[in-house]
């Protein structure tokens, strides 16, 4: 049936938007997280300049993910957001702070320390709350009669805090590897050092989250370990191990681009892993994508917009990254 195809299509678009958001805003949030470790002056200016041209384009995927969820899966939007209410508010406020810091940091040198703090704190809060939200969704949301039926702190658990920390560390890794690629001199050396420790921490966090997930109430373990699916799912941790090895190797050989690409690959594999755990639910064990989908006519109505505009956005994003392919200097790209 055509409508079922469109539901999968829309789930794919929103999954893609979320993934694009996570990897792209991930590295620039990561730079905010690493900001206190960078020296005031050249190192911070270089780091900021390396993401200045692209960060807001990165962030707009969050609007597309949120707006798309609302439009294509209104029921899921109406369940997940109230369930993670304080997290969403904190994330938005963090992003507001950090967004205006980009703008205002350059307007008055006397105010710069203040906006640096806002930038770092906002980035940390946004990353942490995104991670906690992921944990909250994985551990399950109480749904009764198509509505959220829990309290306003149900999301809080050791597991969700663990995923929160994991995402902060992972974004930090993306940021550090990005800096290896995009900066030079002391910034780059510093980024190499932290990348080593952050990569170890990311793998540890990934292992901890993976180990904890099967102990959640649902049958995640069956999806991962039952035959014959295990032949496929086992490839995910295997590939993670290969990517991690390549990352460390690239770091040791002082390659500039490989660590970032491998960090991205690890994130992608993590995302595939989440897909294996969750699909076809949007709210695990409660609401499938078909339960949550908007009616067929709404899906069709949005189709031209998605098919025309998203490719243009992608082409333009690619072009923007191409324009800024070099090293970021203290005064911007050159």
């Amino acid at each position, binding site marked *: 049936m055509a409508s079922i195809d469109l539901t999968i299509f829309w789930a794919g678009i929103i999954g893609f938007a979320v993934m694009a958001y996570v990897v792209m805003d991930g590295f620039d949030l990561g730079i905010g997280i690493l900001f206190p470790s960078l020296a005031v002056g050249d190192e911070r200016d270089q780091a900021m300049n390396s993401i200045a041209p692209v960060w807001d384009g990165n962030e707009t995927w969050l609007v597309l993910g949120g707006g798309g969820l609302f439009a294509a899966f209104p029921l899921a939007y109406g369940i997940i957001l109230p369930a993670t209410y304080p997290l969403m508010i904190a994330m938005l406020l963090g992003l507001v702070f950090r967004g205006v810091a980009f703008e205002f940091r350059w307007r008055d040198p006397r105010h710069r320390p203040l906006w640096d703090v806002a930038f770092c704190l906002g980035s940390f809060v946004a990353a942490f709350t995104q991670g906690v939200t992921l944990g909250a969704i994985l551990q399950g949301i109480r749904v009764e009669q198509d509505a959220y039926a829990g309290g306003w702190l149900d999301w809080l658990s050791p597991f969700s805090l663990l995923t929160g920390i994991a995402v902060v560390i992972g974004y930090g890794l993306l940021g550090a590897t990005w800096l290896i690629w995009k900066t030079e001199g002391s910034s780059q050396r510093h980024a190499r050092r932290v990348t080593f420790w952050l990569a170890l921490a990311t793998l540890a966090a990934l292992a901890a989250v993976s180990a904890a997930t099967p102990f959640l109430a649902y049958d995640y373990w069956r999806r991962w370990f039952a035959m014959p699916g295990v032949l496929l799912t086992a490839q995910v941790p295997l590939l993670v191990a290969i990517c991690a090895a390549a990352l460390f190797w690239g770091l040791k050989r002082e390659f500039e681009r490989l660590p970032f690409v491998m960090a991205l690959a690890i994130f992608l594999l993590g995302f595939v892993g989440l897909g294996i755990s969750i699909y076809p639910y949007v709210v695990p064990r409660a609401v499938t994508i078909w339960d949550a989908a908007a009616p067929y006519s*709404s899906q069709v109505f949005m189709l031209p917009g998605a098919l025309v505009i998203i490719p243009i956005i992608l082409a333009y994003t690619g072009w923007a990254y191409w324009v800024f392919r070099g090293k970021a200097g203290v005064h911007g790209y050159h």
Partner: protein
Amino acid sequence: MFDQFDPVVLARAQFAFTVSFHFIFPAFSIGLASYLMVLEALWLKTGRAVYLDLFRYWLKIFAVVFGMGVVSGVVMSYQFGTNWSVFSTKAGPIIGPLMAYEVLTAFFLEAGFLGVMLFGMNKVGRRLHFFATCMVALGTLISATWIISVNSWMQTPAGYAINAKGQFVPAGSWLPIIFNPSFPYRLVHTVIAAYLTTAFVVGGVGAWHLLKDRANAGARTMFSMAMWMAALVAPIQILAGDAHGLNTLEHQPAKVLAMEGDYQPSPNGAPLILFGLPNSAEARVDYEVSIPHLGSLILKHDPFASLPGLVDFPRENWPPVPIVFWSFRIMVALGFAMLGIGLWSLLARFRRKLYDWSWLHRAAIMMGPSGFVAVIAGWVTTEVGRQPFTVYGLLRTAESHSPLAAPAVAASLIAFVIVYFFAFGAGFYYLLRLMAKPPGSGEPPPPPMPQRAAGITPAPGVVAPAGAGR
């Protein structure tokens, strides 16, 4: 500690706060985008440097305003779900796609043209740059069209059916949904309001610099242009508002009656209540000052036409009358004050004293922010007047909210207030500083610093001359 508050009231306060704050920026950037287009067109046509100077002067301000609009807009795309999840679930199949188009339009506009407009003059040539400016102006208008369509559908829902889950779904074609009965009126009224808001900011800034230096060519030109807008567009806006009011009387009579303070029916023609204290408990206006028959003349274009009263409607369907009554009066008073400034400027122009009458300039400075106040007051009138419904007549506000806990909503409301005043307060400070500088001749283009307000605008790479990087 917040348990004694009603979470629904808190959620409404939060939404009102965040959306009002957000609305300020597009109200300015819609008008400013069109103004920039006009300035660039005039420059291309006449070749006069003053237009290019003004274009660059206002372009820097536009970048900051647009950026703050995007940052505050990100919040809005999540506020529907966090605070109004039941509404989102039920109305999502209809308003979700419209809002998705709004987001995609904004996306498209930023991705394609904002960067060129901000930083690309030397790179792409005059014609292509002007095209980009036009597309940005068009994009802000298309964005406004979608979001006004959403809002209008909530006021005058049309073209819907209700499915087994209780959701509003399209009954067939999307055209009656998009072009619902109040949409054209609201769109015209809102877009003109954005133009007037910008005109008065531009006029106020021009007047400020005229008071300091009457000979400043940029200040003279922007003041003159703004005063033409005030003189020509303020009357059009009053007519558009009147037409919008008639439309509202047809579809949401209770809202209009609350705006007018008409509790009791007036079979022989309603008076126009100028002032008074609405008293909903007693269903009358205390200390009423009114002009007989003028109310009916305005609303029905016939002084003796009968009008119903709020008492003809069930009390549980009344909007909060005093808020609507007062916000409406603030909006109308400011509208007429704008008209007054426009007429005053015509007189000054007629006597060739437009740049000399310092009291006119002082008044224009006072009226500089009037557009924002009027826009917010008008927004309050229409949104509070929609109460007690989110989808008018069909879905009550009391049945639309998320399963909320008062402490969470109160804490987040306080956090929003603090963060917004801090973050956007700093933004306003920087904006005022930009406006405090007089427009000079040879106004430099936006500096090649990472000030990308929004969009994937490849700034330094496009503008920085070779070797400027380091």
